[in-house]
């Protein structure tokens, strides 16, 4: 029995969420290519240099906020119901939150579109970080608020399903997939609180004209309280795939279930009290605070290194099960033709590389070299743009048949797709990093100035621009392959051929019985998280609101 037979209603929910996600990445990818062409000066005729910022907002929102969130709520809906072997309590509630998210997305997207087409009276060229003093139409903020509130509904749905299961199975350990989904959603609850306050208390009333001004530092701080943790909200679902499905794709089993739980708990606890590492350039925050949060940032390397270890170990175990031998020879025994496998393996490789850049970004002093340059998009196209996005695309090849009951089609395109994405990203991201080292700013439609010649360390700017655009086209070609596979599979006939995949996941080599039960007690971890947050964010936020909630520049500026 496949998932769609066991849980037809839930499968439909997951498919709908995925459909929105795929529409977003398709559209966002097309905009990405246009941006790359515009910035590099290859083509500037399709829209104006001013419209560039609306296009860039749409790309950032569609990719980083919409594609990710919709895929994640779908993936977790599958993981929770599959691993608990029980459907959602009430599908009307489930459809309710999904509808809310979709409505919010449409509202936000149309608001951005208004900046480009004349007949929609809205504008939202505020980029996906939407800080003050940039101001968008109220509909944009409202749309984002609905998207977030809807996703809270998803979290509630998973937690309630777990509660019901718990009542029936009081002595069992929480299945790993549900454990991961719930800890990620708890992280999401904790961190979205910051952005919810930013939007609902400050930006929305301000854009409606109800309050005359907001404090940019306060709202930025609230944003980055959310803005770092959100990267783990993107990443942990990829880890969910790496830990629970990837070992099977490699031909083996997960090495250690307890280690996986520890990793997720560490992320829950450590992800939020580090947001200030995005504000190293902000005046009004003390050096001491920046230093402390830099230190905690380096702590979160730990769970990622644990992940690298476990995932590679599980992969090697699988390869040896398949007859692989030798110190490195086992790599050849892996199923590189299977795009679900290769996509995740390449995603992991990209993530390992991006970790080095991440350490540069996180260093308080070194950050000044790359802050707000093209280096930064170069970095996160490896993380969210590849480690996360490529994992999601790869696992779609494995999930979609189980969600539709239809065998995957256009398999050759599917098999090539992850390689195209990976190589395209190597070119684009490498060029972006190097252009950034020369000091070329990001988020700039025409990054050239009469009196400035950017001194690229190696190769000329022209060569790097060519490399950027070449990479962008490879990425887009890869995206088209992905959409073609998904589209034609979806349109295929149900049950016509055997699926050739099944949702069975072998148990871990070291199971949960080897870990203390307290790991499963989320109350402890949430309490610890809140405590750390109070320590990390209490004093600076208190200082900022001292001379009034809405007074800009209220924080004392250090001498």
């Amino acid at each position, binding site marked *: 029995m496949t998932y769609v037979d066991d849980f037809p209603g839930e499968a439909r929910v997951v498919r709908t969420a995925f459909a929105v996600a795929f529409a977003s990445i398709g559209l966002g990818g097309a905009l990405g290519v246009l941006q790359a062409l515009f910035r590099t000066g290859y083509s500037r005729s399709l829209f104006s240099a001013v419209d560039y910022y609306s296009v860039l907002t749409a790309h950032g929102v569609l990719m980083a906020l919409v594609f990710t969130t919709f895929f994640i709520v779908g993936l977790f809906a599958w993981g929770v119901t599959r691993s608990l072997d029980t459907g959602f309590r009430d599908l009307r509630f489930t459809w309710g939150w999904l509808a809310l998210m979709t409505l919010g997305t449409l509202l936000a997207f149309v608001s951005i579109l208004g900046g480009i087409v004349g007949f929609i009276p809205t504008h939202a060229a505020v980029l996906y970080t939407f800080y003050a003093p940039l101001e968008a139409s109220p509909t944009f903020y409202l749309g984002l608020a609905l998207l977030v509130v809807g996703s809270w509904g998803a979290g509630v749905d998973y937690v309630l399903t777990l509660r019901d299961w718990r009542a029936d199975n009081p002595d069992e350990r929480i*299945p790993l997939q549900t454990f991961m989904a719930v800890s990620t959603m708890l992280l999401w609850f904790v961190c979205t609180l910051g952005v919810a306050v930013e939007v609902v208390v400050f930006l929305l009333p301000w854009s409606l004209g109800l309050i005359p001004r907001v404090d940019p530092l306060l709202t930025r701080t609230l944003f980055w309280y959310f803005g770092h943790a959100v990267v783990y909200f993107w990443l942990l679902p990829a880890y969910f795939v790496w830990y629970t499905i990837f070992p099977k794709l490699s031909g083996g089993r997960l090495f250690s279930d307890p280690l996986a739980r520890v990793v997720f708990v560490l992320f829950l606890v450590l992800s939020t009290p580090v947001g200030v590492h995005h504000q190293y350039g902000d005046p009004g925050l003390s050096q001491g605070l920046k230093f402390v949060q830099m230190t905690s940032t380096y702590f979160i390397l730990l769970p990622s290194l644990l992940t690298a270890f476990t995932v590679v170990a599980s992969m090697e175990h699988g390869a040896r099960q398949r007859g692989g031998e030798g110190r490195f020879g086992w790599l050849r025994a892996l199923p590189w033709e299977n795009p679900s496998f290769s996509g995740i393996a390449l995603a992991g490789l990209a993530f390992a590389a991006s970790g080095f850049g991440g350490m540069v970004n996180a260093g308080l002093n070194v950050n000044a070299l790359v802050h707000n340059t093209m280096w930064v998009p170069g970095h996160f196209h490896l993380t969210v743009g590849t480690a996360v996005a490529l994992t999601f695309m790869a696992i779609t090849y494995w999930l979609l048949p189980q969600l539709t009951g239809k065998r995957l089609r256009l398999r050759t395109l599917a098999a090539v797709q992850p390689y195209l994405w990976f190589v395209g990203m190597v070119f684009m991201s490498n060029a972006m990093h190097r252009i950034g080292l020369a000091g070329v700013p990001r988020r700039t439609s025409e990054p050239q100035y009469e009196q400035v010649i950017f001194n690229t360390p190696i190769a000329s700017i022209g060569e790097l621009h060519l490399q950027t655009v070449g990479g962008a086209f490879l990425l887009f070609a890869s995206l088209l392959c992905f959409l073609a596979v998904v589209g034609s599979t979806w349109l295929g006939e149900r049950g016509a051929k055997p699926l050739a995949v099944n949702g069975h996941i072998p148990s871990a080599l070291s199971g949960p019985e080897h870990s203390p039960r307290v790991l499963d007690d989320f109350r402890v971890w949430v309490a610890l998280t809140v405590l750390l947050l109070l320590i990390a964010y209490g004093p600076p936020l208190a200082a900022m609101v001292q001379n009034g909630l809405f007074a800009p520049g209220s924080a004392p500026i250090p001498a």
Partner: protein
Amino acid sequence: MTEHAPTPSDDAGDGDAATENDVWSRRSFVRYLAPVSIAIPIVVETETLVGLLQNDFGENSAWTQPTGVSVGIGGDLRPDLNTREKLQNAALEAVEDGRRLTLAVAVRNTTDAPYRLALGAVTTDGGETVEGGYTTDPVAPGETTSFTAEYVLPADATPASVETTVTIGNQPSERTVQLAPVPTQ
């Protein structure tokens, strides 16, 4: 279908994966994509690293240049001194017998002693020396002045550095100042 308690069917897990992978194994050409795809970043990143190292340590690297920091428009020609020697403008312009380099400088004497600034020869990226320059009249304490110096470089040359001499009281201080790329008019 929970994954915690090992059951006999768990061991079939590996077998499962094998059948799942069988459908793919016919596309064996894809196997070659893996080593190629992994070699590409290794080549690209190695090239980048070697380039960066050459840039720092190789011939003509920033380290072998006369001063560590190159000065562009708006920059301070002599950050080592307390006085102000601001490069107000710099431009290259094609002329009949080559390219004319114009350097406009504004100075302020922040010391208590008489002061003068001399711009001397310019060295091109090819290593040629182009004579020329300008020497200010003595500038009284607290006073300012500005001037323009012109040089005619060979047609394909770009300026790399300029000699400077600041004299405070009777104390001359010489330094070769590396120039940032100068915009062409």
